[in-house]
């Protein structure tokens, strides 16, 4: 019996610890990361407050219930020579312990309702970003005129994490910075602006979740869901896909960089400049080596998840690229397959720029010992779209 008591005491100490733990940061390391982050948006603060209130109510009820139980276990035992009582009903008591919990619930329901109404109010936003979930990456499209309209990119697991997370990679995750929580190209937003996030998906369900922002929401193919954020503090915030979306569900993180208004403007200008440069690039011929080098990067973040970093594929699920009939066959068929997809193979015509598409096809034909020797130029990609 002493053991039971110790066990119970242990629980409550731990709970106490949680409640008092540093709640400012959800990215704390090791034993420090115990509780919901207090977050950096108005919604996340409200939700954190609700969480702490209901947690304390549960702790209170717990102390009462477990206290009575423990008292009873100590005092009402046969070994103490107790003669058992015979009572077995008390209507007043039943009414009391029905009504009191009911009142507590009403007291909880009121603030919960208020917060939910706020969370749902996506009106009067300053800008809108459309987020699309893909197996297994995110696409961000900026929709608001003057706030980066036209910026449109994909964001997937960064190369270091991706290498380390392969089965039997022998790379210690602890040596990888932000292991599994880092991406090749983060979402960038301005601080202190109300941003409406529109969510949808291209293939299966996903869910977009950054804990510091207070909520997650499902991305549903064929439908649009929405939510809003208004981040108070510039910084880097990390999250993950939260709805099972297949093999690499655990490997499609979200990184959001929140910049001050000025820095954000600079970033938008730089992106625009890059876009223009990209358009010019598409008409510039590249050497085989340049294409292969660029293609290797594109391959790692777009193709390796299924076809393997070494082009080895997954037997009877995803075909190998190494020695593949397509990669060693006619160039036109290869390009078409990559751009338009086939069965489980997604269509990449929107994911990849002309340069990227040309590079990755060339890499597949010349990497992994395929050594086909031919290549395609960015300028020739359009013809296949």
């Amino acid at each position, binding site marked *: 019996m002493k*053991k039971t008591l110790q*066990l*119970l005491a242990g*629980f409550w100490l731990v709970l106490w610890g*949680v409640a008092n733990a540093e709640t400012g940061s959800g990215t704390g*390391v090791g034993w420090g*990361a*115990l509780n919901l982050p207090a977050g950096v948006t108005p919604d996340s603060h*409200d*939700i954190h407050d*609700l*969480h702490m209130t*209901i*947690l304390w109510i549960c702790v209170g009820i717990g102390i009462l*219930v477990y206290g*009575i139980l423990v008292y*009873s276990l100590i005092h*009402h035992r*046969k*070994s103490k020579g107790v003669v058992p*009582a*015979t009572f*077995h*009903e*008390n209507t007043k*008591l*039943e009414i009391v312990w*029905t009504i009191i*919990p*009911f009142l507590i619930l009403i007291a*909880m*329901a009121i603030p*919960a*309702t208020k*917060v*939910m109404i706020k969370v749902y109010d996506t009106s009067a936003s300053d800008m809108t970003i459309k987020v699309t979930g893909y197996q297994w990456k995110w696409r961000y499209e900026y929709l608001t005129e003057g706030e980066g309209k036209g910026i449109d990119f994909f964001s997937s697991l960064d190369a270091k994490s991706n290498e380390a*997370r*392969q089965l*039997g990679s022998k*790379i210690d995750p*602890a040596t990888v910075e932000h*292991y599994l929580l880092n991406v090749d190209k983060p979402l960038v937003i301005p601080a202190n602006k109300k941003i409406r996030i529109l969510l949808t998906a291209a293939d*299966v369900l996903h869910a977009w*979740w950054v*804990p510091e922002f207070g909520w*997650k*929401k*499902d991305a*549903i193919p*064929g*439908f649009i869901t929405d939510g809003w954020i208004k981040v108070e503090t510039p910084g880097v915030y990390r999250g993950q*896909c*939260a709805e*099972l979306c*297949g*093999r690499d*569900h*655990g490997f499609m993180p979200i990184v959001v960089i929140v910049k001050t208004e000025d820095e954000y403007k600079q970033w938008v200008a730089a992106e625009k400049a890059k876009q223009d440069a990209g358009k010019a690039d598409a008409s510039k011929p590249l050497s085989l080596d340049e294409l292969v080098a660029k293609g290797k990067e594109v391959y790692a973040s777009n193709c390796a998840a299924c076809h393997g970093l070494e082009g080895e594929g*997954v037997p009877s*699920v995803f075909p190998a690229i190494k020695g593949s009939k397509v990669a060693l066959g006619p160039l036109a068929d290869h390009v078409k397959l990559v751009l338009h997809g086939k069965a489980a193979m997604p269509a990449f015509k929107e994911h990849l720029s002309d340069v990227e598409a040309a590079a990755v096809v060339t890499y597949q034909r010349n990497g992994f010992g395929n050594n086909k020797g031919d290549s395609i130029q960015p300028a020739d990609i359009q013809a296949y779209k």
Partner: protein
Amino acid sequence: MSVTTHDDTHAHDHHDHGPAKGFMRWVTTTNHKDIGTLYLITGLIMFFVGGAMALVIRAELFEPGLQYVDPHFFNQMTTLHALIMVFGAVMPAFAGLANWMIPMMIGAPDMALPRMNNWSFWLLPFSFVMLASTLFMDGGAAAAGWTLYPPLVLQTGHALPFTVFTVHLLGMSSIMAAINIIVTVFNMRAPGMTMMKLPLFVWTWVITAFLLIAVMPVFAGAVTMLLTDKFFGTSFFNAAGGGDPVLYQHLFWFFGHPEVYILILPSFGIISSIIPTFSRKPLFGYSSMVYATASIGLLSFIVWAHHQYTVGMPLAGELYFTYATMLIAVPTGVKVFNWLATMWKGAMTFETPMLYAIAFVVLFTMGGFTGLMMSISPADLQYHDTYFIVAHFHYVLVPGAVFALFAATYYWLPKWTGHMYDERLGKLHFWLTTISVNICFFPQHFVGLAGMPRRIPDYAVQFAEFNAMSSVGAFVFGFSQLIFAYVIYKAIQGGEKASSEVWEGAEAHGLEWHLPSPPPYHSWTEAPAQALISDLH
């Protein structure tokens, strides 16, 4: 467990036959105890199969990085682990208890529909073999989670139709078992055994049976729609054809929420039998227990979308499901308070069944608290699909439903076998299990709150310590269950003879304690004497 001897007090010279001999006894049996035994053994075997899968999951999660399995296989493990534990371990075990105990408790000779009883059991082994075989099919087993959400589940390879057919068979089996229980309880109670005298185990099973009949067809329908979407060109869940993936979720959880109560209501009944016996006091608030169970049953139909707070329901829907879900905490609280009041001023002893019952009250309540937290929809926008949810449902299902099954086994094992089980081993099993289950699941609350999503094979390094702890707990838990299997085996083989009463004063707590241990093959061939029934608490 084969008993052919007559019990003296009930012996009559009409012809009475024992079981057939050999293997065919089990194939052709229509006897409620034989079928109960088959169900229980199946449940135990599947508990180990599902448990082995859990250990694959926890081994992979022991440290960051992928060490043992491919993520796709990992997803197959989480999917099959849940399906097997829910449909293969817990539900059959409860059906086994119902078969064994209900006729004995209500003063009947057997179940009302014995042939259907045989059929409903024998569907199970074939279904589970079929489900397990999907692991070896092209594309592997279903890997979309036990909820089988489209569109992901439609990416399953050859396994999809087999998985769907397994669900159909399991649903048929459950519905038949449910019909049998309802018909038995409504028609075969001994004279004087009024509804409000039924032991709570019987009451909770009757309500469970109604839930089963109401929701299994909905699940069967939903998975059939998956099948037609995949193979016959329909678009129920495909937006491109005018359908909606979220429709599936509504159908699934209209089944799924009552389903979780199907897994817990019979446990409530078991705990309500055990606590009075070992407190040597009548159950406190019998009628309020019956009403609370009934209201939980009714409420369970109108709260389903609390599993979908993040799908983008309209605000009004969001709020409605919040209020309705919070309401469930009220009757659930009433049950816990009644158990406390039953123990209060009792003369408790702490044999293994009672230890498990107490642990149930403590730890199930913990799951109730997290349930209450998650019912607050804005907060659930954070909790949803994290390890916090994993902690919640494992607290209600493992130290909840599974502990109730352990408690029931220890409580009735001497009655079934006629031998006392090894109390020392029972207590050892209890302590190892209870401590390890908390080491396994308690830290999951923390990683969940700190941001770890569920259903992932690998995680960021800040979650490493708690995951390692969780895995250690899981392995200790898993291997401790071998003790349980051994205790059962040993009691079947022999041991100290059990009296008919088994536990001091148990006779006042149920008719089963008036039958000899082990009981005759046909339980009450003659109705129990009125005095026995009116003396029950």
